[in-house]
């Protein structure tokens, strides 16, 4: 009883130690997401916003759990979580063999979950944990370097097999960022980069037709304005026509009249840009910058390598999603199915995003700790 109450006190202490500003930012962004989902359904709360709100509730609970979790507990379960994620990916693959076509979901009770989304958290945890015991003289050691490569390639290969090029790319980039922040030598990256460049033509050969078409469309969207280039053109028209102040919530003609496909998911920024204009888009970007900036500051200042790399991983996760999504809908890169944190409709990615926020809070609370392995403080 005494022990339980002491544990309870520690949890409460950690809970109180959360960064209020970042918590507020998280809630603001989540609320903003619900408003956009309300608009995406043409002013109907029940279509997208309500299911999203339920997932948001679940995600916030997960976030708090991760935030207040003792560092040792998170550290110790890192590989377990990673292993669970890989296991789920394998499971999806097996179910996919039995069903037909691309299989990305597994049923969890009433929800269906995309393990590839959770994998983004899994890879951050696993790599951060690995580099915690990484000694500086290992940075040139080939065997020591091959392990993070393997940790990355297993899930990436499984996700590619789904096939889901977008998520596989993102997991790779997150892993790359963590390795970079862990201090791995330049020549190793040069080698990896060379391998990627060499793999591009081969990979292109293995791309699905629709993916090849997306690349071609990006290179010249006007050749077939009603076909593959339609999304990009309509998206640019929508954002551009928003102007400085936007057309007002629920009044974006492009979005409300269905000229934007996937407006509640990948093209949510387009709808927002049309309805809330430059002001809305910049406000959103400022919130993102604050959140990523906070994670980056932790990545530089946390006392343990585990903490620093966790923060760096989360920063890279948020950054890469935001960049790819916005660049895509604004016609700067080919159409890739990458959601926008907090705004896009979809449960798994919302959970991932909020878990990432939980991890940032966790690192913030335990920022003064040098070794996460040593017991519970």
């Amino acid at each position: 009883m005494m022990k339980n109450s002491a544990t309870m006190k520690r949890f409460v202490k950690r809970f109180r130690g959360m960064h209020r500003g970042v918590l507020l930012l998280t809630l603001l962004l989540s609320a903003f997401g619900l408003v956009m989902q309300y608009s995406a359904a043409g002013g109907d709360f029940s279509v997208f916003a309500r299911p999203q709100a339920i997932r948001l509730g679940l995600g916030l609970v997960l976030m708090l759990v991760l935030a207040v979790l003792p560092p040792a507990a998170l550290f110790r379960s890192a590989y377990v979580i990673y292993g669970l994620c890989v296991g789920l990916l394998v499971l999806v693959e097996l179910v996919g063999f039995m069903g037909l076509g691309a299989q990305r979901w597994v049923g969890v009770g009433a929800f269906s979950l995309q393990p590839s989304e959770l994998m983004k958290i899994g890879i951050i945890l696993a790599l951060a944990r690995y580099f915690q015991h990484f000694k500086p003289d290992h940075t040139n050691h080939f065997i020591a370097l091959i392990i993070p490569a393997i940790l990355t390639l297993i899930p990436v290969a499984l996700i590619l097999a789904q096939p889901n090029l977008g998520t596989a790319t993102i997991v790779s980039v997150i892993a790359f960022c963590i390795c970079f922040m862990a201090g791995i030598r330049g020549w190793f990256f040069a080698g990896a980069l060379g391998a990627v460049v060499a793999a591009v033509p081969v990979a292109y050969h293995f791309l699905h037709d629709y993916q090849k078409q997306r690349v071609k469309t990006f290179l010249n969207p006007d050749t077939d304005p009603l076909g593959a280039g339609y999304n990009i053109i309509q998206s640019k028209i929508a954002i551009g026509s928003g102007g400085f102040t936007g057309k007002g919530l629920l009044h974006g003609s492009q979005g409300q009249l269905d000229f934007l496909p996937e407006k509640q998911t990948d093209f949510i920024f387009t709808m927002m840009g049309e309805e809330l204009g430059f002001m809305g888009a910049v406000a959103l970007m400022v919130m993102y910058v604050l959140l990523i900036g906070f994670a980056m500051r932790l990545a530089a200042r946390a006392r343990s390598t585990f903490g620093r790399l966790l923060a760096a991983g989360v920063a890279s996760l948020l950054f890469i999603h935001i960049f790819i999504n916005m660049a895509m809908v604004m016609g700067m890169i080919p159409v890739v199915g990458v959601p926008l944190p907090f705004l896009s409709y979809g449960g798994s990615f919302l959970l991932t995003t909020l878990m990432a926020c939980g991890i940032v809070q966790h690192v913030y609370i335990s920022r003064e700790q040098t070794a996460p392995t040593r017991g519970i403080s």
Partner: protein
Amino acid sequence: MLTRRAVIFGGVQAAAGFALLSRLYYLQFVHGEEFKLQAEGNRAKMQLIIPPRGIISDRYGTALAMNHVNYRLVIEPDVKAKARETLKRLIVLMGLSEKEVKTLSDAINRRKVGIPILVREHLSWDEVARIQYNLPELSVATIDEGQWRHYPFADHSSHLLGYVGKVSPTEVKAKTDQPLMKVPDMKIGKNGIELLYEEKLQGKAGAKQMEVNAAGSPIRELDRKPPTAGDPLPLTIDNRLQEYCVERLGEESGAVVVMNVHTGEVLALVSVPAFDPNEFSKGIRNNYYESLKANKKVPLMNKAISGQYPPGSTFKMVTGLAGLKSGKFNANTRIYCNGGFYLGNHPFGCWKREGHGSMNMQQAIEQSCDVYFYTVARDIGIEALAAMSREFGLGEKSGLGLSGERAGIVPSPAWKLKAGRGGWNPGETINSAIGQGDTLTTPLQLAVMTARMVNGGKKVLPRLLLHEDDKLMGEVDIAPEFLALMRNGMHDVVNGTHGTARGSKIEQEDYMFGGKTGTSQVRKLLIPGQDQSKIPWEFRHHAWFVGYAPVGDPNICCSVIVEHGGGGASAAAPVARDVLLKAQELRANPPLNFSEKMGA
């Protein structure tokens, strides 16, 4: 090391963020206006509004062709499942047949988003009410209002008025400058007045700007410019007379044209049997069309302008005038008819086998003596006959403009050579004298001929529009006393003691009429004097009568043909008598409400 890398990583992120911001600025500020225009273009689509078609009326304002609202039940097939569900409910509600259900299901499967599928049209009030009541359950069904052309007098004026129909693909191509032609519901004139005055009747298209979604389905109306209705088109026709003519002809196959002899205003233009143009404007049903085509009385043909028949004895005035003009004959020239005539060795019989005896020209017209006019033609030749025919408008179109109008034939050596039929045979001149042989005329042409015969020689032309300036008319090149002689002959045909149509005389002195009978052979007589009622209908003679009234100061003329009626005196003259009597009565009694209408 770590910090340095964090700075690099942060730097990359800052650069990327700046790139995004720049792009946003580029899209929303540099090209903002451009994209605003494009978004507006996406959102709004112009839809043309079909203008209401001009109303066609008779000379007293009675509507002959008007527009009714066509209530149509349509389903918007954007969502297939909903369309199917709605169709299922409609089966019970509307009692759709199995065949209809199949057609509609196919249409739903092959649907194009944004294009509604028509379930039923021309809904009754009862049906509209039933659908409106159940509308909440019929998610994607709507009632839409179109127009359809209604002809209240159905088949009484169908040839004259024509009908409207969908624009055919070739017509769309021919009229690329008229965007209205591409509107799916657009109907244009296909025949008769509807075709001839299409431009006046059509009106000017309106337009509405609709907000549409990405699928092209209209969401709401943004702006509207109403259409301009087509001009009302009052005709010279007196509908009461038109109706009377139809009834008087009854079951016969034939035509009647009634005309004002001075102005050329056509008071009635009737061809029977006819068709119901309402069926055509609703979208013609195949079996109806087939039955029309199979009818041997050719209801689809406007016999008044397209029917070409030998004029028979109605042509004798022309022959007589040509003789008078030549100077070889005068009012007192007497010729003895013994019932036959020889050109060389070739005999030509008079219709009266026993012969008419000695007669002058007026008597020859009254009794329609063939031998008299054989003699005239032999002495003046075919060219003189042909020239006189043309003076009276034969062998050419009247300029009325209705589609299908034929020019007839005025035979001459030149015409025969051109037709590839070889040299002229003198015997043909003799046949031409009594309107047989190759001569062909339409009922309209004979009405024009009669008008010029009795109006003092003005070259009147027929016309159909009420408020149209009189055309400048020339005069026929004949001395007035010759025309008077012909008029006296025609007077005697009906009112003389020996007149061929004396049985049809009108007793009321103010309404007395004159005219000329005619009988044109369909097949060469096998047995002279055979009773026409004893041979098959399609081999009987056509019966003609051309007439005018009143005899004192003619203002109305008419021509009547009764196909295979037997003889002019027996079949056509009684019709002409009744029509001319009616026309005069109606002329004296405009419709009761007419003056009120004009005052209002």
